[in-house]
């Protein structure tokens, strides 16, 4: 059966956001440490503060559907300082807009991810290889697009997309930054995974986990 029109798991948005909150609030220190080695050290704090703000949005105004859950996260990031905060905010904003129904179909999700990637690139100006979040998002978006319409299940495809994002994030360790705060420190950041790319990969891992009701395995961050 063609997988494009299959809706993602019931309550996918809710489960995805729960996974994001759990993973990021638990791993903020490690992300902060990556940033201390390559940038200015505030990334872990910023992402934790964005998600705490998302949590407050959710508590104040219980989301009803996928769009509502993702909008709460988007606004959490848009209310956060720095550069990656607003970029993630616009990324989640595109994702929040992808679903026509209560949950997105696989094709809608793939389009949302591609639109999120496009908006991040439009605002940030980064290409693949610049050592930014784009290095994690782009391979995941490409993978979903290329395997859409095949017979593989959404569970399998989201897992593959997450793995592509993790591989993309890990590849940033070998790169010299062309954009973002790490571009100011040059060779110092060589050998360090870009924290924005790491966070983007975790976002995709959380989506894959939400689809099957599991948890994101972020052990690669410290390996």
């Amino acid at each position, binding site marked *: 059966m063609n997988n494009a029109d299959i809706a993602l798991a019931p309550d996918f948005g809710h489960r995805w956001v729960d996974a994001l909150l759990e993973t990021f609030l638990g791993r903020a220190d490690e992300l902060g440490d990556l940033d201390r080695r390559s940038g200015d050290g505030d990334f872990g704090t910023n992402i934790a503060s964005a998600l705490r703000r998302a949590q407050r949005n959710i508590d104040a105004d219980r989301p009803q559907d996928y769009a509502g859950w993702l909008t709460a996260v988007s*606004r959490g990031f*848009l*209310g*956060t*300082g*720095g*550069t990656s*905060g*607003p*970029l993630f*905010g*616009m990324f989640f904003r595109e994702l929040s807009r992808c679903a026509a129904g209560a949950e997105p179909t696989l094709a809608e999700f793939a389009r949302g991810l591609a639109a999120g990637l496009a908006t991040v690139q439009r*605002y*940030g100006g980064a290409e693949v290889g610049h050592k930014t979040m784009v290095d994690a998002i782009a391979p995941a978006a490409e993978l979903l697009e290329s395997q859409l319409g095949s017979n593989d299940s959404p569970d399998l495809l989201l897992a593959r997309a997450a793995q592509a994002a993790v591989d993309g994030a890990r590849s940033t360790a070998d790169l010299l930054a062309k954009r973002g705060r790490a571009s100011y420190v040059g060779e110092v950041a060589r050998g360090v995974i870009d924290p924005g790319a790491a966070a983007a990969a975790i976002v995709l891992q959380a989506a894959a986990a939400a689809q099957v009701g599991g948890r994101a395995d972020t052990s690669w961050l410290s390996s």
Partner: protein
Amino acid sequence: MRRQILNNPEDLVDEALEGLALTHPSTIAYDREAGIVKRAHPARDKVGLVSGGGSGHEPLHAGFVGAGMLDVAVPGAVFASPTALQVHEGTIAADSGRGVVQIVKNYTGDVLNFRIAGELADDDAVRTEVVLVDDDLATDTADGGPGRRGTAAVLAVEKICGASAEAGAELGEVAELGRRVARNARTLSLALSAGTHPGETEPAFELGADEVELGVGIHGERGTGRVPFADADALTELLVEPLVAELGPARGSSVIAIVNGLGGTCPLELSVAARAVHRSLAGRGIAVARSLVGSYVTSLDMHGMSVTLLPADLDLLPLWDAPVRTPALTW
């Protein structure tokens, strides 16, 4: 060790804005929840003007909210851009139905968050135009980097756009006028000592007793080079000469000149510098049509000054002269 009048550094911006609003209750109000400073009595039926950026540049921007200038100021933390949601709130608050001009200094975070806020405002059917201010001659490099920083010319842009909006101009006209001012104005700065970040004990950089940092920005960043300390006339000439060379005003033309203190410069010093600017320009056959002397766009307590020159087209002067009533600028 630098001592400062400060409670908790984290509360500094909030407390200062509360203080400013308490001092000028008939002019401005501080909405702490939204993180914006707006007019106490919002203007009706005019193009809205919103500006903002990091704090630490006082009286910029909250000091310029009021009749004839800004409708809303959006302050960030010290030297940090306001968030996209804050700018969005400010943009919506500035709109009275005729659209909003966002006046943005050229820094990556400010540009990004204002652009996003413009896109969010579009969802609310509020039209926006951006005027990017990038007047700092010291960062005029052709390397494809972030471009010239925005510094004291933002004051001229806000004053002139404010007068134009108050006079009933349309969104596109106000924005185009602001862009023309930003395009034509240039600023250059120097520092005798760096500012000290709230809560820090040491200034952002150290200078020897016989050194002057030339080409500093307004975020405590280092300048483009160090020159020997000299008297006021000679130091002022270090700023005027490159500005004149860049702008090339003809003999017999006139300029609007802003002599601006960077936060730790006393008024007596600025007046001596203003005298030097007038004499230097007069020596080149250039008249100072209007001038403004004081600390308006600062870098915490940096001891230093900037000079901004803006060729005075005849149509700019009436807008410059138009009445303004804000906490920091009134005539």
